[in-house]
């Protein structure tokens, strides 16, 4: 049996900020959804089903928000599904929505992910002491810092690489009106002089806490044919999970991430990702994760990822632009961050990325990860329909 090709025909985001006190949670998601519909030139009645995602319910203090959000998302009388796969959720949500179209269960699906972090304190929400469990040590940074240190030791990367990533992403964000952080006076020196939070991660090398939502309208071939703007076609998508911790786990380059990208490349017919992919939106919540994921995703040999960063390959005008949107380092509405990566990849191949457009981008990767580097979701989108 054949899958129905899936196209992204609409993308909408909020302007991500520290606190959207002017809107309710419903208002926030409605804003992104309405923009995606507007982009697709569709109305609420054109939508067959809604798939939403977000990180833990504790972040807003709202249990199972698909119930309360049914009205705001025009889902009354329709199916609404809520996905939760930790930090990778924005990506997983898009993939679940894409499968509804691929399986020909629905023709036009609205997918949306959000977080309104200002409703709570995510860092402490992530640091609950649980009996008999490894403590996460003051937020996600405390968990990931040792793995960054392990990467530095293994690869022999110079200490400055992390700052280079942050400096690049924050400058890219200046070209993205939706990005949370717009640091007009950013300099490399300022990044390197910022306070050390979780050694070796400095304040300017961490993601912000954001309120924001991201939505996409996904459609089948017929929907794509009616699309007023060029669609982005899904050429491959996959999810992989592995346990949080176990003897032999490689936190620097988890097997689940390698398997996930290999599956996506196989579906998309990509043999050499570094050569065949024109832009990548990768989930980099702490600067050092750019070189780490470049290796995990097969863009660089083991131990060589930092060289791509250092030599400017990942700059907006480089050979493989990474996070032209400014990435998670410039906007992090946690549950939405993965979907923003997926949506930004789609914007690139649609030629709709505005000032942060990568010239001639025809194939782009969207990537998300979560939990203890254990949940991965990725898709590869192209400007043409898939061959098979």
């Amino acid at each position, binding site marked *: 049996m054949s899958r129905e090709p899936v196209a992204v025909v609409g993308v909408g985001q909020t302007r991500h900020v520290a606190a959207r006190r002017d809107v309710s949670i419903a208002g926030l998601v409605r804003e992104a959804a309405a923009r995606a519909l507007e982009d697709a030139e569709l109305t609420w009645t054109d939508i067959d089903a809604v798939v939403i995602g977000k990180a833990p319910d504790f972040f807003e203090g709202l249990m*199972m928000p698909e119930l309360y959000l049914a*009205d705001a998302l025009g889902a009354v009388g329709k199916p609404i599904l809520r996905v939760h796969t930790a930090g990778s959720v924005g990506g997983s949500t898009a993939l679940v929505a894409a499968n509804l179209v691929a399986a020909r269960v629905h023709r036009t699906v609205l997918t949306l992910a959000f977080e309104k972090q200002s409703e709570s304190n995510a860092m402490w929400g992530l640091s609950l002491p649980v009996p008999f469990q490894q403590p996460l040590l003051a937020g996600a940074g405390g968990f990931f810092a040792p793995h960054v240190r392990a990467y530095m030791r293994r690869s022999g990367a110079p200490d400055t690489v992390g700052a280079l990533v942050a400096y690049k992403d924050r400058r890219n964000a200046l070209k993205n009106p939706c990005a949370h952080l717009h640091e007009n006076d950013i300099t490399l020196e300022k990044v390197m002089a910022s306070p050390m939070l979780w050694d070796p991660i400095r304040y300017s090398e961490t993601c912000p806490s954001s309120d924001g939502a991201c939505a996409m309208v996904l459609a089948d071939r017929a929907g794509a044919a009616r699309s007023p703007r060029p669609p982005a076609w899904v050429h491959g998508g996959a999810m992989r999970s592995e346990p949080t911790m176990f003897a032999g786990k490689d936190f620097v380059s988890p097997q*689940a991430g390698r398997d996930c990208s290999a599956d996506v490349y196989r579906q998309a017919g990509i043999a050499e990702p570094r050569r065949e992919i024109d832009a990548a939106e990768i989930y980099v919540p702490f600067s050092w994760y750019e070189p780490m994921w470049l290796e995990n995703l097969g863009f660089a040999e083991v131990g060589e990822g930092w060289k791509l960063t250092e030599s400017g390959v990942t700059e907006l005008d480089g050979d493989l632009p990474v996070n032209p949107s400014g990435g998670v380092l410039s906007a992090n509405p946690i549950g939405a961050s993965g979907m923003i990566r997926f949506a930004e990849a789609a914007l690139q191949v649609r030629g709709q990325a505005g000032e942060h457009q990568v010239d001639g981008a025809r194939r782009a990767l969207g990537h998300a990860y979560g939990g*203890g580097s254990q949940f991965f979701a990725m898709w590869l989108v192209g400007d043409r329909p898939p061959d098979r």
Partner: protein
Amino acid sequence: MTPQAPPRRDVAIVAFAQTRCRRRTDELSEVEMLMPVLHEVLRRTGLKTGDIGFTCSGSSDYLAGRAFSFTMALDGVGAWPPISESHVEMDGAWALYEAWVRLLTGEADTALVYAYGKSSPGALRKVLTRQLDPYYLAPLWPDSVALAALQAQTLIDAGRADEAALAAVAARSRTAAADNPRAQLTAPTLDGGYVVAPLRTADCPPIGDGAAAVVLAAGDRARRLCPRPAWIRGMDHRTEAHSPGVRDLTDSPSTRQAAERAGAFDRPVDTAELHAPFTSQEIVLRTALGLDDRVAVNPSGGALAANPMMAAGLIRLGEAAARIGRGASDRALAHATSGPCLQQNLVAVLEGDPEGDPGE
């Protein structure tokens, strides 16, 4: 221009297991509660974790009292080497739906679905108020029984039921549960007076902890794994407006809509497993689905006999499939609900192959 709806792939429930639902399981973590049912469905099908094409689960952080609680369950599943896996923060019935869609794409031939919930550590009625509109409803803390009572009173006011009719539903469910070794309540409960009028103790579900697991398989794979697979002929879910104030609580249009799209009305079913935690809700659902006395409703005892949060909906699908598996049903309807006063509903239609016909 697009050839819509080519023949769907045949997907079936081939194994089901559930824990006995218990009021408290203080000695067990969620993972420890879940593991036996995971092992049971794998043993029955002879599959190993590594043979499973896709895994999907349903659970709630609000019940577990910690963020990312589902990750601990995943550790128990044994996701190594890495597996293709997803999770919904919903009843496991919706995890089954996601897995079914995944199998329909042809990307996987088998799926493991599980769900679990421990209600005992917290005050469930209070916890569930956190599902409500956080600005206008949740601050009033209307609890799940109070909202169900509002629905029951609406039903009574409309002349569609009286307290005796509710009591009859309770008695029939608990009597049926006597044959269900997994049920929490297996005898008619004594009338303990009103919990919230007009709902009495007997009209309300027991609070308990439990877990369930299901294996799905496609086509010939299903036939090899199970003597009589329960084929999913259709499945759909629909939601309604959130505010109870704007809904007709005596009706369940979303259930009817889902049932229509699942093909439930194409031919009569002989069995219906309805996820109706409150007696009044069974009456609403029976009417919405047009079920008459010829249909065996909740032969397991239903949610009135065991209602482990996040798993009770999946258990309805599992019970219906198990009944088909043992030849007690040929065509069954399974229903799951979520949210206050039956806000969101899922309906699946399951069928067994005709006896003596192992299918094409």
